[in-house]
């Protein structure tokens, strides 16, 4: 006769409520693990969808994600010409926050060359960008509809397509526009600002005594080219030809002044070790604390439940029950509670993880490890109850 099952059946309400409570706690532990993994996945999303081998950024920076990086767009031609490089494409990144339906909408805007790569990895609805201007593809997480228009900078942009779960390293959903549009949004000034710049710079040039009148006139005539140029990008990404040597290509680009070629491994390290390290450690610590709390709670529940059964245990001992019957009852109850709570926590997370504002990645390995830890906690926690039970004297069954 299984005493653990009989006891649970008799106190079913209490057992279910306890398991639900513990299940919610384990659900939080699982979600913490999922957020922990999600941080990695988010941080590396753009790196992964771009499928570039080298990220060329401004010299002495860890750009374009960890630090600002600005390089001229036309460097792409030089990079393309490097032996071993199959293709190169400029990319522009910026975080934008606008008001949409009276709520702040924050997203990561990616500008890409329609003839290059680095654009939306997949189109779930609508189509890809076909025109050079005023079209955008947004990530599903932005909750926008095809045909919806939003104002960015000086112009309105229409949503023409929906892509998958593309997010920035900080978890903001991504939107894609053409590189020219992204540069306009980032750098183009309105007419008043342009006129003001021309006047101010023109006046400054006139006051420079070292310039001859002809030089001053030439510079004034070309102010517009200097002040209105938007041909700056944050990075140029390159893919290598089959068989090309990464180190050789990096070494060659490094020889040029002002640029730093970062391999995808280095970029991964910058993103995971630098940018999300503290958040990762914080979450890791939270998980450990929650597991310790779970262990304490399970121990207390088992201990309290054993105290409730002192008379039962004493009676069992008095009628000659073997210790294994009593140990089995406590251990099985502890394990059942842990396993059912794990199931409740898992079910809860499975039902809700897509609704979390940040990505939750449920790795089978993490879930299996947590299961093993929960089982171990239950076994260890039950020792507290078992120790108490084994000390119970049969004589305690006597008396009123």
């Amino acid at each position, binding site marked *: 006769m299984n005493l653990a099952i009989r006891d649970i059946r008799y106190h079913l309400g209490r057992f279910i409520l306890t398991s639900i409570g513990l299940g919610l706690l384990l659900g939080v532990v699982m979600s913490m693990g999922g957020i922990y993994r999600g941080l990695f996945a988010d941080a590396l999303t753009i790196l992964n969808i771009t499928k570039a081998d080298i990220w060329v950024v401004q010299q002495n920076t860890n750009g374009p994600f960890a630090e600002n990086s600005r390089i001229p767009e036309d460097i792409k031609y030089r990079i393309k010409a490097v032996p071993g490089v199959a293709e190169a494409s400029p990319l522009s990144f910026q975080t934008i926050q606008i008001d949409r339906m009276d709520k702040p909408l924050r997203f990561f805007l990616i500008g890409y060359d329609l003839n290059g790569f680095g654009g939306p990895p997949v189109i779930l609805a609508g189509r890809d960008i076909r025109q050079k201007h005023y079209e955008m593809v947004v990530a599903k997480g932005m909750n926008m509809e095809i045909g919806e228009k939003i104002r960015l900078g000086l112009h309105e942009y229409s949503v023409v397509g929906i892509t998958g779960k593309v997010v920035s390293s900080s978890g903001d959903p991504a939107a894609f526009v053409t590189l020219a549009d992204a540069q306009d949004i980032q750098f183009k000034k309105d007419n008043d600002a342009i006129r003001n710049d021309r006047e101010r710079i023109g006046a400054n040039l006139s006051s420079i005594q070292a310039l001859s009148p002809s030089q001053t006139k030439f510079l004034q005539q070309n102010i517009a080219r200097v002040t209105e140029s938007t041909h700056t990008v944050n990075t140029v990404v390159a893919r290598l030809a089959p068989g090309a040597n990464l180190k050789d290509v990096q070494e060659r680009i490094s020889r040029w002044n002002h640029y730093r070629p970062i391999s995808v491994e280095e970029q991964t390290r910058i993103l995971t070790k630098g940018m999300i390290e503290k958040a990762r450690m914080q979450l890791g610590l939270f998980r450990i604390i929650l597991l310790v709390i779970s262990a304490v709670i399970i121990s207390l529940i088992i201990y309290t439940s054993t105290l409730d059964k002192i*008379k039962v245990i004493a009676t069992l001992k008095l*009628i000659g029950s*073997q210790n294994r019957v009593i140990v089995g009852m406590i251990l099985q109850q502890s394990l059942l509670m842990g396993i059912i709570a794990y199931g409740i926590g898992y079910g809860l997370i499975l039902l809700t993880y897509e609704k979390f504002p940040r990505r939750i990645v449920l790795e089978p390995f993490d879930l299996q490890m947590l299961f093993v830890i929960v089982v171990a906690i239950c076994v260890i926690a039950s020792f507290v109850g078992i120790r108490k039970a084994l000390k119970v004297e049969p004589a305690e*069954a*006597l008396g009123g």
Partner: protein
Amino acid sequence: MGKSMYAIEVEKLTKIYGKGETAVTAIADATFQVKPGELVAILGPSGSGKTTLLTSIGLINEPTHGKVVIDGAVVADEGWTPGFDLKRMRREKLGFIFQAHNLIPFLSAIENVMIALEINHLSRPDAKSRAIELLTSLNLGHRLNSYPSALSGGEAQRVAIARALANKPKVILADEPTAALDTENGKNVMDLLKKLAVENHSAILVVTHDHRMVEGFDRIFQVSDGRITRES
């Protein structure tokens, strides 16, 4: 284990709690024998040592001095017999009935009886049929699946008696079995014990402080201040 004509043999049984100046003698030099089928009462006021005597015979409380023999097996002789399996002895030879019924609250009446049989290695079907047989014989056939909380005091005590009888013990030890019952139910329980002593040929030792309940017992030991003062 030699054959003995007694189910219980107690010789100069002494139990002392504590040591030195704080030592308290709960029972001193108790000597008696009980034959199979005999119904014996130990009568005495609270604190007289009757429960200590019962627990020493029930292999719960180790005697300080003296000898206890159950069904021919020397279980204690100046302390427990080394290597003796007390649990097994309790399981196979002894049946206990308590003041409160002490049924396991999360087991039904039938399961409360079956558990005593199953821990004695009886198969589940055999345990079930034996439990049904016992409970039916005690007029509890209609209460097989009732939990203790749904049973009356008298019914619960009869289930406890059925559990005590489950393994056909040689000795049944009852500690104030009527204390939690009204007079009528108390009398019924005592009548039942008398009947069982004869039918099952078990030695039944009942501890009580209630003189009214020991009518018709084969022998009555009066206990006072830890000593058996009178046998009638």
